Structures are given as structure tokens and as C-alpha cells.
């Protein structure tokens, strides 16, 4: 049996075997030439000189086990997958030789053998297909593309789009972008009655005697005439409200004289 394959496998490099170590022997094993146990099995099956569909799997299993045994006796270190295959084939062999087991769920030896035969046939078929494929006319070897390709000129035009609506919305956005208040009146110079009421309610309990409204304006509201007017009006309106509730009294000595208020609580 001579097995020698000149194409080293790219996947199988773990064998420490080198043929130089061997004395001349009828068995020359170059495991590096095989791409794993299936490849080896396929090579072995060819020695049966039979159609792949008709090979004896039992015989093949024996051939493989024999091969592994010889490799062992020659102290060739076999990779794990070769040993796994050997174990499996030994199992298969026993299955094929022994009468079928009672467990019907267990595959029979014939079924297992048939599957292995199928796998081998399929691998061989793929090898044949690969050979046929590579034997086809190939571009750049048997037929040729245009040598002087003409480049398609790509003209890219960018068209920018913006509608009037985009424009208007953009403008509205820029004009209103800070803490958007949809058309709320700017209140910088407006002192509301609510503000005045709140302030008055808080302070009135601490007042003693009559107080001029004009001297009771909030801080920062006497800087301009407009602000003074707004604050005065609101504060006055607030005093009216509080007077109505009976919280304070109002008086004015004459027309256009200062308006004064005092807390009703201070009287008690």
C-alpha cells in the first residue's frame, strides 16, 4: 500500500511524521497529504477498484483500522480526528458483524454504513465537480473582457431644495428660539395684580401705621416711569382687593394726594 499525496494540506499539519525517518518500507505514509480522515477513507476506497456506490464499507473500515494500526506500530503520532474516526469505524465494524440489537431506535450497522458511503460519494462528487469547474473556459485565460475599458463619466448634480414654508418656519424659529413663548407679551415692564397681591399679603402683617403706596413699590420698579406706573397701578389694585376683603384700610386726603393704606391687623 503506497499512499503519497504531493499536495500538502493547509489544515493538517500536526503530524510529527516524516518519511525520512522511515527505513525503506512498503508502507510510505505521508499523512500531511491528506485532508483529514474522510480524505484518507476516500483514497483507501479507491484501492477497492470498485464503483464508489458498490464499495464494501466493512472492508473499508478494516482498511482504515489496518492503516491506523500500522501507523501506530511505526510510532506515527496520529491526530485526534484520525483516532476518533478509527474508534467510530471499529464501532461500525462491530455493528456490521453482530446481529442487530433489540433497540429499534438505534441505527443499524447498515444504515450507518450507508450514510458513510453517501458521505464518501458526495465528497467524491464535489471533487469531480470542482475539477469540471476549473476545466471550464475562464475569464482572462480562455476568453477576455474589453481591454480598454471606457469609463462612464459620472456627472453628479446636487439640487438643493427649500420651500417657502421651510423659509418661513426657519425664520419663525430663529425669532422665537429662546424658551419659546408663543406670542406672549413681553412682561419686562408689566407688574401684574397677582404679583402685587402676593407681595402685599406677605408684607402687610409687618406694617405699622399709614403707608404711602408710592413708597411701597417693589425693589427695581422705580427705575423708569413706565415701571413705576405699572407697579403703582397694580399695587393700588391689590390694595383695593385687600380692602374689599377687610385686610386693610385705604385713605386719600384729597384728589391727587398720596394714597395711603394701613393694615387692619395693626389696629387691633
Amino acid at each position, binding site marked *: 500500500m503506497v499512499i503519497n499525496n504531493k499536495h500538502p494540506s493547509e489544515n493538517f499539519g500536526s503530524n510529527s511524521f516524516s518519511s525520512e525517518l522511515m527505513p525503506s518500507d512498503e508502507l510510505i505514509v505521508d499523512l500531511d497529504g491528506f485532508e483529514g480522515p474522510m480524505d484518507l477513507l476516500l483514497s483507501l476506497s479507491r484501492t477497492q477498484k470498485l464503483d464508489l456506490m458498490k464499495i464494501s464499507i466493512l472492508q473499508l473500515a478494516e482498511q482504515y483500522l489496518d492503516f491506523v494500526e500500522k501507523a501506530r506500530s511505526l510510532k506515527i503520532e496520529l491526530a485526534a480526528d484520525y483516532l476518533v474516526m478509527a474508534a467510530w469505524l471499529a464501532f461500525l465494524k462491530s455493528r456490521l458483524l453482530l446481529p442487530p440489537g433489540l433497540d429499534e431506535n438505534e441505527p443499524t450497522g447498515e444504515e450507518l454504513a450507508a450514510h458513510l458511503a453517501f458521505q464518501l460519494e458526495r465528497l467524491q462528487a464535489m471533487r469531480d465537480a470542482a475539477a469540471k469547474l476549473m476545466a471550464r473556459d475562464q475569464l482572462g485565460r480562455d476568453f*477576455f*473582457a*474589453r*481591454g*480598454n475599458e*471606457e*469609463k*462612464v*463619466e*459620472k*456627472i*453628479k*448634480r*446636487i*439640487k*438643493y*431644495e*427649500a*420651500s*417657502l*414654508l*421651510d*423659509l*418661513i*418656519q*426657519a*425664520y*419663525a*424659529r*430663529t*425669532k*422665537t*428660539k*429662546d424658551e*419659546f413663548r*408663543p*406670542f*406672549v*407679551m*413681553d412682561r419686562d415692564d408689566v407688574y401684574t395684580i397677582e404679583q402685587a397681591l402676593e407681595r402685599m399679603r406677605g408684607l402687610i402683617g409687618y406694617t405699622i401705621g399709614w403707608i404711602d403706596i408710592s413708597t411701597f413699590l417693589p425693589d427695581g420698579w422705580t427705575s423708569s416711569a413706565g415701571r413705576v406706573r405699572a407697579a403703582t397701578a397694580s399695587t393700588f389694585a391689590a390694595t383695593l382687593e385687600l380692602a374689599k376683603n377687610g385686610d386693610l384700610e385705604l385713605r386719600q386726603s384729597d384728589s391727587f394726594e398720596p394714597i395711603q393704606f394701613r393694615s387692619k391687623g395693626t389696629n387691633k
Partner: protein
Amino acid sequence: MIEEEKLTESLFEAPNIDQQERMVEAILFASSKPVTIKEIIGRLPYGCEPEKALKNLKEKYKSRGINLVKVGDCWALRTASDLSFLMQKETVEVRKLSRAAVETLAIIAYHQPVTRAEIEEIRGVSVSRGTIDLLMDLDWIKIGRRRVSPGRPVTFAITQNFLDHFGLESARDLPGLKELKSAGLLESPPPPGSSVPGELLEGEGEDLQSELFNEEKTI
């Protein structure tokens, strides 16, 4: 005997003219450069005379989409020159104008003539050179007169093309903020159900303000 003679012929005589045409055709097609007569002869089987084949091919291709042309003393197959338009692929990519560009354009339209500094003040961010360039490229804005103020900054104004594009007769046709609001064109509309009497008052004030604003604009 005749059979034998024929065989000898095919071995030692040049291929027939049809076959020669095929060969010349294939050589010219696959070559990356125009090919000299000499080179064609060198590559054809012995005894070929490509001049004839070239002449025939030239005639055959005359009305086709590919032409055989002589370039100096070389020959080449070329696409017919009247079909060169097929070799261009024009793609139009429609892009939305960036937010920055639209805002800048809007400010120029509403405030023209306006300086860059003023645009920046309104937008609150600096205006990039690219934005202005793009708007100029689109012929939507132009450089207006210089402002009579320190540094004499240039101003920007919108163009006739802008008006055409946006379907406006004049910049004065641009709607004011008040109209925008009533048309519902403003983002973040006030929350619904907020029309209590107090707010009504506010609404009146607002009218006043937007009028003021309009006046500002026309300055």
C-alpha cells in the same frame, strides 16, 4: 487525396478571411491599447494578411455602435462617437438645504440688507463661510451695498432668482410673524385649552408687539 490536401491546407495555409476577421476583432477588443498592423500580424497565424480583414471589419462596423478606427498606424475599436452621450450618467441628487442655510436665508430675506454680524446676532451662532457661499452659488442671495458704519461691512440681500424660486413678487410679500401664527405655521403652538380671559388680554398685547415688530422689519 482531396481530403488529405485539404488537411495540409488547413495546417499550412492561412485561415479563411471570415476566420481572420474574427481573430482581428478579438485581438482589438481585448487589447488595452490601439494595436499596430505589425503586432496584429505577429499574433495571427502564419500567412494572414490582416489589412483585408481590417478593411472588411471597418466596413461592417461602420453603422454599428462600435466603430473600427485607425489611430496613427494603429487600429482600435471605439464606441461610435455619436453615442458618447450614453457614456455619461447624470445623477441628480436632491438635498434639503441645511437648517443653518435655511435660517440664514430667512433672516436675509426678512431683514435685508443685513450684515453678517446682524445675522449672527439673530441666530445666536456664527454664520459659516460655506453657508453664505452656498446661498450665493444658488443665486438666492447677493452682496448688497456696504453699510455706512464702522468697518463698512457688506450687507446681503435676496435676488430676483430667490423671488422666482419661492414664488414671491417682492420681499414684502413674506408673511409676518402674526400671519404665521394665525396660519398655524409656527412650531410649538400654545397648549390647547389655554384661551382663558387672562390670556385673551395677553393676545391683544401680542398683536401690538407683532405690529411693532413689523415696523421694525420695514426699517
